């Protein structure tokens, strides 16, 4: 057994152990903290699987932003819900156990029986990547070869915002999102929220820019930017904007809209929907990525800020 395999076995056992903990933990907060640690370790697994692009996304979104989202609600659950709850009946648990074990066993069998040599699209990507002027094949797939997925995905974010906003209380529409009210924490948090965002914004822009040639890109850069915005909102240095603001809505749809416009223009200029004229491929991709980064940052930040609430709701509700 090689040293690398031992390390990977250790990682696997840790991840499974934390997974079991998040299901079995008695306290909700404990389960969420376990899930955050779990996300960190999964990011390391992505590095071991030679997928640094995915590792960056997992570290930023899977662990960081999701952790904040879950903690925000875990600490608000009523105390009675945190302690003892009526357990699910033994019969249901046994049945669920059998079902889950069967599904896991089936998937494990699939993993063990995967065809050899493995089917792959990597050679086609490698052959066509020079035409886009990009150096990072993952960005190439995201913005050029499977652009339709990415376009739909960026639209899904806008739909998610619409979904969250539509959960606004009756008198909340048009007001500011209400989840991220500044906590009375004092100067330490203010200092952190003043010093960290300049570094974070630099890192976010770096990730977007480097995404053309190295691991990084719009999603990772946008997630880091969103995290810095949210930090400023928690510290009370920035107020969440009212959802009726036009600039906010423009920012949310700028990325998908530009993507779609260039895609439709491709029908005449390059012969197909979402195709780029070869001579302008690289600059077009960069412009789309820049707009996407901004829109994704705005969307992720607003998803964390929650639905709009009437200002007086702050006193009345948790």
């Amino acid at each position, binding site marked *: 057994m090689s040293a690398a395999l031992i390390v990977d076995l250790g990682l696997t056992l840790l991840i499974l152990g934390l997974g079991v*903990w998040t299901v079995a933990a008695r306290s909700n907060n*404990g389960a969420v903290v376990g899930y955050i640690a779990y996300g*960190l370790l999964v990011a390391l697994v992505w590095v071991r699987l030679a997928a640094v692009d995915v590792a960056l996304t997992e570290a*930023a979104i899977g662990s960081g932003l999701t952790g904040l989202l879950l*903690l925000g609600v875990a600490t608000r659950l009523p105390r009675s819900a945190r302690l003892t709850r009526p357990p699910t009946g033994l019969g249901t648990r046994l049945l669920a156990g059998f079902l889950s074990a069967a599904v896991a066993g089936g998937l494990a069998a699939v993993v063990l029986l995967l065809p050899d040599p493995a089917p792959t699209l990597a050679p086609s990507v490698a052959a066509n990547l020079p035409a886009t002027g990009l150096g990072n094949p993952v960005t190439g797939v995201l913005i050029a070869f499977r652009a339709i997925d990415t376009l739909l995905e960026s639209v899904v974010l806008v739909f998610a915002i619409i979904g969250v906003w539509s959960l606004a209380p009756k008198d909340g529409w048009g007001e500011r999102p209400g989840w991220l009210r500044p906590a009375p*924490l004092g100067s330490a948090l203010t200092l952190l929220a003043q010093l960290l965002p300049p570094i974070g914004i630099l*890192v976010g822009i770096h990730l977007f820019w480097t995404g053309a040639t190295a691991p990084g890109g719009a999603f990772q850069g946008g997630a880091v930017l969103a*995290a*810095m915005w949210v930090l400023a909102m*928690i510290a009370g240095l920035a107020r969440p904007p009212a959802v009726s603001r036009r600039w906010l809505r423009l920012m949310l749809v700028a990325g998908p809209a530009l993507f779609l416009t260039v895609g439709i223009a491709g029908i005449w200029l390059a012969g197909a929907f979402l195709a780029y004229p070869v001579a302008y491929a690289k600059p077009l991709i960069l412009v789309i990525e820049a707009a996407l980064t901004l829109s994704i940052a705005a969307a992720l930040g607003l998803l964390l800020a929650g639905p709009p609430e009437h200002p007086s709701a702050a006193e009345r509700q948790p």
Partner: protein
Amino acid sequence: MDIADFLLAAAVFVLATVALGLTRILRGPSDVDRMMAAQLLGTGGVAALLLLGVATDMNAITDLALVLALLAAFASVALVADARRPEPEPVPDDAHPEGKTRT
């Protein structure tokens, strides 16, 4: 021994060490203790990634360490920020007279 091998060994050592600290997540007793274990894992993970990045000469892994460092603190801030707020009480029924949509 090659310097890269040493760096890799150090990365594994640090990771294994902070992984041991994860038993604090199981034992608690308070959520702050659990969060500390997660934060130690974060810092250890950052250290291991830096070592790995230099050992394998991959700049992208250093970027990953930077992102992890930026966002690891983030969750801890969220936890303590929320913990300072008072316990929520169920809203009395008259607060939302027509908001009840029970089936």
